[in-house]
């Protein structure tokens, strides 16, 4: 057994009301935090001199399907000054799949959060540019959800499998459209003006 992590202890002291769970397994520290406290907790992680997690390495999500709450959004943090890592999770229910954006704390969260929206359909409140990032316009649904129908296709060109463009092809995209970038998705918010 590894000794209790000082980072986790410090977090438990400061955020006892908001931390649901902490876990330390073979040197990997994990904190599960309440969704309401996510932003203040993240800001603390970046700004507190004991913490100073200055680098957001990754944001992703997990769909547990049968669990309640159904989703977990996972943040991986790194402190370059202290050479430490921390995993922060927050749980999101199926009937209100939304988290607040951390782009105000780490700018690099922008594209990660778009991916979370695109793949899992978890809305990111306050995100400056919430569009799909990997899938194309005309794609419906969020393919990494565990209940996504596995043989569902959204063809973009008429093909032998989908010969009738009128009927089968959701929207035929021109190559130039791809380069220009596409319109905003539902749930997107206008970027704030500086």
């Amino acid at each position, binding site marked *: 057994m590894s000794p209790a992590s000082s980072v986790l202890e410090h977090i438990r002291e400061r955020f006892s009301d908001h931390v649901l769970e902490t876990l330390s397994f073979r040197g990997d520290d994990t904190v599960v935090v309440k969704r309401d406290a996510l932003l203040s907790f993240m800001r603390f992680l970046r700004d507190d001199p004991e913490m100073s997690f200055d680098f957001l390495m990754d944001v992703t999500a997990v769909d547990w399907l049968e669990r309640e709450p159904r989703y977990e959004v996972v943040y991986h943090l790194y402190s370059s000054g202290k050479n430490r890592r921390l995993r922060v999770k927050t749980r999101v229910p199926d009937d209100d799949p939304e988290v607040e954006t951390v782009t105000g704390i780490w700018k690099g969260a922008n594209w990660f959060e778009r991916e979370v929206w695109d793949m899992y359909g978890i809305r990111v409140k306050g995100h400056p540019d919430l569009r799909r990032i990997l*899938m*194309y316009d005309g*794609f419906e649904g969020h*393919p990494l959800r565990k209940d*996504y129908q*596995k043989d*569902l*296709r*959204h*063809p*973009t*060109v*008429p*093909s*032998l*499998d989908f*010969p*009738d463009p009128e009927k089968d092809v959701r929207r*035929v*995209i*021109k*190559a130039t*459209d*791809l380069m220009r970038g596409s319109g905003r998705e539902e749930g997107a918010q206008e970027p704030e003006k500086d």
Partner: protein
Amino acid sequence: MAKNDSSDGLGSPILLTRFEKVLSWARKYSLWPLPFGTACCAIEFMAVVGTHYDISRYGWEVVRFSPRQADLLIVAGTVNYKIAPALKTIYEQMLEPKWVIAMGACATCGGFYNNYSVVQGVDRFIPVDVYVPGCPPKPESLIDGMMMIKEMIEKGEPRARESWEEKWKERYEK
């Protein structure tokens, strides 16, 4: 010998076939490939163009990234629904006569990806003349595939493009 009754003296059908032969001889030694590289197959393609395998032995080394200047489209890698319109546009922009090689498992049938994003073979939406198996194929395999194209040109074999409409109609009417 057919009767020659044209005034320019070139109306004989024998002359015409010879012209075709000369043309195909020139064509088969000067294929300009366009690599549509989206995955590891493209790395193998680089090896084929490189000095060790050296396709310039056959006169095929002039790799063109403009569809207007290429006669052989090599689809090397996974093609998903997002990029498919781009590939179709590139194919349509190529000038006749044109040939297509589907290189590797992904381009021929989707490979091990059968999911929401990957087209199950580029022959679903563009006609393919030669399929090269492998994941990725060895450089020798691709050269073998190109040799088949060369043979097709030499013998004047019909391209997949010519029976493509039929195939489409058949599928559509089903």
